[in-house]
């Protein structure tokens, strides 16, 4: 695999005038306990160390206007087959000279999905961005986007077309999906510290008429994904609030399966560096995921997280090269409204995670 990857990317890298080599490792200890309704006590569900992410990236600068990025995720955990795995996370090229508009980039390849907070989720908490956590959107996908910035820092925007299936799914049902996903994203900053944003994405799953026998496919559905975002960052306080909805529509004959799910997520962060003289953040998160309209997986989840980050070994630009994160997350399903989810094996859980992240980067000039 490594040899194949090398053969694919080496010719491109040879043409680059500058290559940035970077890495980011997430070493994590997870202790999780949980119980289903009727259980008398919590059972330990997980207690393990892992390398949850092992990103290795190459960013090749071919000119001031053309840059490529290639990132793989080498992870190691006893939860996956063979204890390790490799995913291609990004493989794209940015062209900032194709369309003569200032600060506009055309990006082609496996790239970020500009939906909600997923594309710039900074992992102040160990958990994923809400739209990733609740499977509304993927953090990366194959496609073509126009993404850029408004003048004078008024905001940013993106329009894109993607496969709609993400970067780590597989199987015949994906092969059958011939409908692309379309995306529009806009963020505005009317004043420093205040961000208002919205995203819209249409997507589909599987094929309306089965190829094998030309009959209607009961699993075929289309999705309308919406996201509204508010961020307020003033002084040491930084709060994100995000509301998302996912409207899933099946073919007329199967319209009984139609449903809408919603999520609300509030993520506050208090930066204590000015007060303590050390780069420490207190973080929190409140999530409410309402999928009670989904007949096959009714559930209403409340998740609350508290945590602390200690950032150290900063680089010249004061970005932390090392970070220690401690999070505790409590997930509770509403017993009355989550019968189907419990039947599917979900449990109320309490999870303690301690994570050590470290990053490096070096630029090699041709």
């Amino acid at each position: 695999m490594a040899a194949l990857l090398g053969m694919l990317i080496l010719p491109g890298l040879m043409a680059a005038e500058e290559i940035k080599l970077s890495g980011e490792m997430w070493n994590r200890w997870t202790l999780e306990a949980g119980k289903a309704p009727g259980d008398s006590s919590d059972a330990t569900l997980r207690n393990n160390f892992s390398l949850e992410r092992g990103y290795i990236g190459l960013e090749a600068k071919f000119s001031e206007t053309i840059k490529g990025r290639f990132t793989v995720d080498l992870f190691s955990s006893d939860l996956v087959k063979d204890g390790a795995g490799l995913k291609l996370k990004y493989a794209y090229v940015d062209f900032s000279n194709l369309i003569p508009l200032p600060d506009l980039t055309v990006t082609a390849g496996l790239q970020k999905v500009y939906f909600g907070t997923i594309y710039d989720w900074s992992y102040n908490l160990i958990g994923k961005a809400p739209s990733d956590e609740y499977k509304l959107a993927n953090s990366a996908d194959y496609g073509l986007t126009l993404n850029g910035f408004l003048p004078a820092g008024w905001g940013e925007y993106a329009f894109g077309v993607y496969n709609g299936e993400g970067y780590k799914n597989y199987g015949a049902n994906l092969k059958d999906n011939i409908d692309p996903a379309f995306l529009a994203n806009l963020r505005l900053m009317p004043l420093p510290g205040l961000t208002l944003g919205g995203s819209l994405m249409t997507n589909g799953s599987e094929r309306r008429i089965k190829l094998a026998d030309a009959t209607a496919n009961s699993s075929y559905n289309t999705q309308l994904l919406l996201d509204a975002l508010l961020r307020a960052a003033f002084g040491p306080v930084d709060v994100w609030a995000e509301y998302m909805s996912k409207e899933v529509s099946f073919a007329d004959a199967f319209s009984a399966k139609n449903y809408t799910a919603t999520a609300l997520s509030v993520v506050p962060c208090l930066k204590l560096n000015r007060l303590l003289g050390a780069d420490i953040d207190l973080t929190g998160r409140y999530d409410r995921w309402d999928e009670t309209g989904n007949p096959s997986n009714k559930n209403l989840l409340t998740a609350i997280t508290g945590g602390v980050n200690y950032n150290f070994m900063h680089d010249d630009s004061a970005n932390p090269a090392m970070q220690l994160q401690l999070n505790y997350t409590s997930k509770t399903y509403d017993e009355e409204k989550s019968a189907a989810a419990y039947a599917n094996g979900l449990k109320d859980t309490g999870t303690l995670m301690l994570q050590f992240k470290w990053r490096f980067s070096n630029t090699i000039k041709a």
Partner: protein
Amino acid sequence: MKKVILTTILLTLLALPALAKGNRLTCSGSTTVLPIAQATAEAFMNANPELDISIRGGGSGVGIAALMNGTVDIACSSRTMKAKEITQAKSKGLNPTPYAIALDGIAIVINSANPVKNLTLKQIRDIYTGKIKNWSEIGGNKAPIVVISRDVASGTFEVFNEKALAGAKVVSTAQLLASNNAIATTVGNTPGAIGYIGLGYLTSSIKSVSVEGISPNSASVKDGSYPLARKLFMYTNGKAAGAANRYIAFIQSAAGQKIVQEQGFITLN
């Protein structure tokens, strides 16, 4: 009563870091702005001995990132901030505010033994993209051109790239150096070399050529006729206050601008 005591303690704790920082000012960023910042800081500290001003280089991009991360009070930059940087800063609750402190021209420099006196922007672009490889192609001696450029963190490079290269790729054989000084020294020691530096770094061992027939000097930079003229900036988060405000006001004052001129740069007025 307990609430009052608690509130007082809390407010004191919150105020302590600000008080502690009252006599200390940190600046980082552009190596072009560095000599101005160092010389003016020295003069300002002489007049205000209670103040401690720390100046670091690193490049405009590094200084701007440090300002966004809240670890410096002033970012020195030889270019304006990009829309992406302003957007990122605003999203974090910062309001980067520019203060012009000097004018500068990016001087195209060659070894003092090189007879070439003028280059057009097209010739500069062709040299830096590798289309022109020998000085004899542009009226010079028969000698290969040694192209010297700056690293990516450099604001000087960004302005040069925008104004002279129009975004074109610098030839892969170019030597990339980390500072104006390094370029001046290398060009001075290399007969066939060409580089670009801030006017304040010109020395007797190198010479600047005119661009499109216009020499980089005080008049041509001030009236904007020199094609590679630019402003040099200091950025603060929001309107400069306290020591930062006094320091920047000093640089913009007649006394500060005199130092700007002594360092080889062009005054604002």
